């Protein structure tokens, strides 16, 4: 049975691989060309932005748009603000969400499913409508225009809880059962088994959070539409104005936002790229205090686990 395939396999494999590469290249082109075009346009002088056929290599190239951007807006300050908020929110979420997710994934208690539905329900009301009550709450606390005012409401997330719960559900229960037999309490199991096993997923959750909170468009939109009024003007002053606010089209409306010229600074740096995969074996060794059995690397490899290198 294996005889005839031996000769054919390499060709078929090479053909398949080429096909995969072609598909991937096509996909990557669709993803990247718009970005490259944006970069190219950011280097053009205004009068060359709208030419037909489009210029892919700017002639002449200029940094004027960047200069104007940094002249007009305190970019450094805004970037630092975004960074502080994003990092704090992400760290906070990883703690609160993973704990809650563990309870939802692994613990039996009355009203669990109803409570989980309540968590999901918090995702279903548009942010734009709770922001007014939230703003009133923040002014009562005196947190308007402060970092904690931007950070704390973001630290608690049903999305993160849901994402991590799904990940925890795929972790085999055997590890925990053995740990329970060894007398471990839920907290030990959580910190020593679940978290190390789920690091790729928590890493992903962390990155997603960072993106969303650097963005913060909803707040920016509300800020913009309400800026005209005195009582809310102080709300997001320069001190806590996030970067995305500057990219909101309203600011450039006098120069027709449908034809953006100048750099949009579209891509935020990938702040967190955790490569935690190696920690899973370390974490498990830490539980047992030795290299082999019952949570050996071999056992890990042969079992279903959610650990995989994603990014």
């Amino acid at each position, binding site marked *: 049975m294996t005889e005839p395939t031996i000769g054919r396999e390499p060709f078929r494999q090479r053909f398949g691989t080429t096909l995969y590469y072609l598909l991937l290249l096509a996909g990557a082109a669709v993803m990247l060309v718009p970005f490259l075009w944006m970069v190219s346009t950011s280097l053009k002088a205004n009068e060359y932005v709208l030419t037909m056929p489009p210029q892919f290599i700017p002639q002449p190239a200029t940094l004027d748009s960047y200069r104007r951007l940094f002249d007009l807006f305190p970019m450094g300050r805004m970037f630092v603000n975004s960074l502080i908020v994003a990092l704090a929110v992400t760290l906070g979420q990883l703690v609160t969400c993973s704990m809650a997710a563990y309870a939802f994934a692994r613990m039996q208690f009355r009203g669990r499913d109803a409570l989980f539905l309540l968590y999901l329900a918090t995702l279903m009301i548009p942010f734009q409508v709770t922001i007014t009550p939230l703003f009133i709450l923040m002014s009562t606390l005196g947190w308007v225009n402060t970092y904690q005012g931007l950070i704390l409401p973001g630290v608690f997330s049903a999305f993160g809880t849901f994402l991590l719960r799904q990940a925890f559900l795929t972790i085999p229960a055997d590890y925990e059962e053995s740990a329970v037999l060894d007398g471990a309490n839920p907290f030990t199991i959580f910190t020593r088994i679940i978290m190390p096993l789920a690091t790729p997923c928590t890493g992903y959750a962390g990155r997603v959070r960072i993106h969303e909170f650097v963005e913060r468009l909803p707040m920016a939109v509300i800020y913009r539409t309400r800026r005209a009024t005195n009582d809310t003007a102080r709300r997001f002053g320069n001190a806590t104005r996030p970067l995305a606010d500057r990219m909101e089209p309203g600011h450039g409306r006098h120069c027709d936002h449908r034809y*953006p010229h100048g750099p949009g600074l579209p891509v935020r740096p990938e702040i967190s790229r955790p490569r935690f995969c190696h920690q899973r074996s370390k974490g498990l060794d830490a539980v047992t205090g030795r290299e082999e059995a019952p949570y050996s690397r071999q056992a890990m490899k042969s079992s279903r686990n959610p650990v995989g290198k994603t990014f």
Partner: protein
Amino acid sequence: MTTLESESKPVFSPAQRRSLSNTLWALLFLAPSLLGLLFFLIGPMLASFGLTFLEWDPLLPSNYTFIGLGNYRELIADPHFWQALGNTLYFIVGYIPLVVVAGLGVALLLNRGLRGISFFRGAFFMPVVSAWVAVALLWTWIFNPRFGLVNYLLRLIGIDGPAWLFDPNWAMPAIILTSVWKDIGFVSVLFLTGLQSIPQEYYEATAIDGASQWEQFRHITIPLLSPTTFFVLIISLINSFQVFDQVWIMTEGGPAGATSVLVEMIVNNAFRYGRMGYAATISWVLFALVFAVTLVQSRVQNKWVTYD
């Protein structure tokens, strides 16, 4: 005396005590997240429910009138609401199948251990890490009928492209395409994580039994991926009911209301027309809709989601 009684008649049976201790542990784990959510999210949510019975301009905070169910009555008779609801459903019906299928396809491609795969992963993830504002501006321009890249390419192959965002028939498809483009990376990384949690042995074992690739995909990948698919579906539905950023920047609901969606209507009412009560009412109707759909989804999940 009391001690004797409690000894002879334990307050809790051992099983009850175990479940009590379980509940306590669960509460301990839930406490930080639950308290925070109650304070910062559920509180404001309930407050916004209160607003649905008021006529209230947030710019004149002390000036409000209680109008009972007036907002709800107005909503039912408001043709703009039905149009926005229809457009939102149009968006969902176009967006979700596309993003789920494309996301799964990309995940399957990326799951091959090919050389240079991290470059491709990065490429597909680029739009996810970009701000919606930048992406939407970019695509507004790509879809520009005269100077845009899409119509330029169409012209190269001899097609006279539509006016996209300026054409009531093509504005929503353009927004859907933009959204799919931005979210493919997000969905495919979720699927990729799911794919990598499927043990290789299943594939090896079935390969020995002579299963074809399609059979393996159908009988191993799809069922074992179902927890991820479930998550993707729920989250995409919740998010796409609230589609807003791209609409707000690309069309502001136009042309002729062809892309007017529910959250866009909410924001206009709340912050442009000073009608916070009405905005809250639309939000809660939207909430009821999403909640019903999610409830149905989580009831149906027993039928198709397998947790190993």
